[in-house]
């Protein structure tokens, strides 16, 4: 079973969760996916999703960190 962890600053709506889960399942039809939702206000906004060692961090926090690194 492949675990996908979704962290966000605010809770996802049911529609958003469904859209995400459906999309991921279509992309990985062979895999059995499990979704874990975490509330992390420190992200400030957006999503941070990790799956099998890969991370997609589009949170506002991540962008701020990138900005700080560039300064």
């Amino acid at each position: 079973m492949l675990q996908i962890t979704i962290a966000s600053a605010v809770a996802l709506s049911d529609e958003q969760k469904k859209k995400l889960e459906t999309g991921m399942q279509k992309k990985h039809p062979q895999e059995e996916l499990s979704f874990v939702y975490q509330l992390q206000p420190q992200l400030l906004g957006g999503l941070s999703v990790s799956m099998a060692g890969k991370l997609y961090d589009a949170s506002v926090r991540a962008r701020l960190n990138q900005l700080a690194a560039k300064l």
Partner: protein
Amino acid sequence: MEIQLTQIIFQIINFGVVLGALTYFVYKPVLKLLNDRREKVAAAAAAAGEVMQEKEELERVREKTLVKASQKAKKIEDDAKREAREQAKAILDQAKAEMTARENKFNAELTKMKKEELKKNEAMIKQAAVLMAEKVLGQAIDAKKHQKLIDEQIDQVIESL
């Protein structure tokens, strides 16, 4: 009065004898004495002349020696002055070089400190800027905007993972 020839002759002979005796016993010794004295005086004068010459020669030698000694003393003095000047210059140059080295070291340390301070300040400014942005964003993003942001990112997440 009759002149008696024999007496005259006798007187003449007497006179001659006396003259002869005087010449032999008095005149010649006295003459010899006077000559000896004259010779002694001449010798003494000659010796005095030699002494005077020697004295003049010594005087010349003394003058020459004095001049040489004076020249030598002057040379020693000049050499000592020159050496003292050179030593003073060397000490001064060394002191200047040390001062320059210390100044350079101080300037380098000052520049380093300034850079470090600048770096610290930069870091603080960055941190402050990020904190400010964090605060502003935290207040600026309302519930609607959050949801909109998540909606936009869901497709990207699916595409990326």
